[in-house]
């Protein structure tokens, strides 16, 4: 990892819970003793537009945005947005993505088709590609709403942050009534 900085990109569609996932990730990294920076754009992107959240941690982080081509891990919440962000990754970077398709307006209106064969194309470029059925795994964990947490668990296994910090971060960021099911979902993802 360049300059001992770990670069993670979380991408998807506004409203998918990307910001919460990136907050948990940042919190865990801080608890583990790292310097952390995070950046994303709010505003117009909340209205169903593309969202890219950058999280960087290490001994000392300067830029809050990941330089193009230096991403270590791409954490995709939606397939087309995952594909769109591949140029942010370094060669041989890691892709962990939810196998979920959300149609943009032009596809909803039948003017364009949702691109096909995206996961095959990702696989061709990146050996370390984990495609997960987040919704199914989440219902296995006991709540279909915890898909993001399952995926975060899968991402966590690839990061040098120990499990206790992840649990502490979940305890801080997740409402108490949803904590246990999220912890379960996280561990499920971590075991994949």
């Amino acid at each position: 990892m360049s300059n001992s900085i770990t670069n993670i990109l979380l991408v998807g569609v506004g409203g998918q819970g990307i910001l919460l996932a990136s907050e948990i990730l940042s919190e865990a990294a801080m608890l583990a003793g790292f310097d952390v920076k995070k950046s994303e754009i709010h505003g117009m992107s909340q209205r169903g537009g593309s969202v890219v959240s950058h999280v960087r941690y290490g001994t000392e982080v300067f830029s809050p945005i990941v330089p193009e081509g230096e991403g270590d891990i791409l954490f995709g919440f939606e397939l087309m947005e995952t594909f769109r962000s591949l140029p942010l990754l370094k060669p041989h970077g890691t892709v962990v993505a939810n196998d979920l398709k959300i149609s943009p307006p032009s596809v909803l209106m039948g003017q364009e088709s949702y691109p096909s064969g995206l996961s095959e194309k990702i696989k061709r470029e990146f050996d370390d590609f984990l495609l997960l059925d987040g919704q199914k795994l989440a219902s296995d964990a006991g709540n279909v709403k915890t898909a993001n947490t399952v995926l975060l668990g899968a991402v966590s296994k690839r990061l040098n942050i120990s499990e206790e910090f992840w649990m502490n971060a979940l305890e801080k960021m997740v409402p108490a009534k949803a904590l246990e099911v999220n912890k379960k979902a996280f561990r499920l993802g971590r075991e994949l």
Partner: protein
Amino acid sequence: MKTILSGNEAIARGAYEAGCLVACAYPGTPSTEILENTIQYKEIDSSWAPNEKVALEVAIGASFGGGRALCTMKHVGVNVAADPLFTLSYTGVRGGLVLVAADDPEMHSSQNEQDSRNYAKFAKVPMLEPADSQECKEFTRLAFELSEKYDTPFMLRSSTRISHGKSVVELGERATGLAIPKLDKNPAKLVMLPGNARVRHPLVEQNLINLSKAAVSMPFNRIEIRDTSIGIITAGICYQYVREVLSNASTLKLGMVNPLPYDLIREFAAKVDKLYVIEELDPFIEDQVKAMGINVIGKEIISICGELTPGRLRAAFGLPKPAVAPTEKMPGRPPNMCPGCPHRGVFFALNQLKAYVTGDIGCYTLGFMPPLSAMDTCVCMGASIGMATGVTKVVSDEEKKKVVAVIGDSTFLHTGVNGLMDMVYNNSPATVIILDNSITAMTGRQDNPASGFTLMDKPTNAIDIPLLCKALGVKYVRVVNPLDLEETKRVIAEEMDRPEPSVVITNKPCVLIKRDDVFQKGPVYAVAEDKCSGCRACLKIGCPAIEWRPAEDGSKKGKAYIDSLLCTGCDVCRQLCKFDAIGSVGSVK
């Protein structure tokens, strides 16, 4: 204690630690969350004002009363607040006053990318520029202290990446022992008539000279010597990109960007072989360094347009581009009005009526996008009504009837009221549609003077918008349900036809309002497959809950489908279906 804060959260924290008593703002991306965070500190009286000018005037009053006051706005908000700002520099302050201007390079959520540093220089107000959340907190606190020490308001410049970026912050305690606010008459200082202002102006000029000299030894302006073959003068977020990409270069990191510490710049320039200024937007520092007679490279390699990124900085210095995965063109994903949004029906009607729509700033600006495609102009907050009046002054009588202004409730109260006053006063035949969704939606659902609640969530008077319009002299004020397409279209058509000023007000709330009793979700809808003819009429409203699914045999025939998770039951699509194929789940099969 260490915690992760956004720049905006850290500015709020800085104000708290500085002993700030009053915070006032009009919401605007990327500044909005500052006031949404000052409310957690009960010692600070936080409030939304109808616009930035009023917000600054409230802060000025608090300062004149002897309390520390914070006022925040996005870059274009400073245009609205400019009038008091330019004279505030003459009066100076009693309690410290800090004005945060949050710029939006790249226009992630703005209509222009003006550089607020020019305002600091133009209005003769000192300005600090933080480079991360820790500095956001420190500089805010420092700005309050310097504001009182130098008897001047201070500006703090943020940008989207600073305000919405998060980084680790060490928290401190709230300042104690500050003077208790109390009335104190000092008209020679606070009444800016010519006689007094002529006395104050030279003091302002001298103050800036004093600050420029003092800033040489202030710790937020610092020279960092590394490799001396390249020296870079930079500030704010650009400093982080310089450290990221050109890690060996020597830097002069400026914490104060107005006035510049001229002596420190000379000292740094003498230490390095080749001097650069790396700054986003205008050549603000560069032009001043050049005016000092120092040779420097800046906008030759860094664009005036857009935000800086590590990649763009790398390209500017001719550093190799990393190998990245190939990409291909894919459908875009622009923002869209939400499912059930009450604006949709209005823009559908305006499209059908072939209106010439002068637009305004808010979620409804998305009415510009296909398939609604019903907005023809958008310039600034409140401009729609004045523009409509202006258009009707020059076009033919037949075309006058096509002119419609659309404006949201919050924008109308911000600066639209004056436009309507003018429309009535000068008898424009245009029609105004006030899209009253009971909230300031675009910036994330903030209350406003018509929503019935304050920023502190206290019930308050809600302005009666129809009554306000009548009080301004509008004879024809009609309220419509925008989810009733036929009624909406009929009423708008009638008012467009009327050769006098008229106002149509829609009365359905934003679907995202959190209060339980405001937005009520209806029964979820579905499409009866056997009745759907595939005519695509329901797609003309561009609802994200409706999807066109091609036939499985690959033929052009397809059917509409409604996503039950997204549908709010607004009923608009049902009204477009000529085949009775759409209805609430259970009523259709």
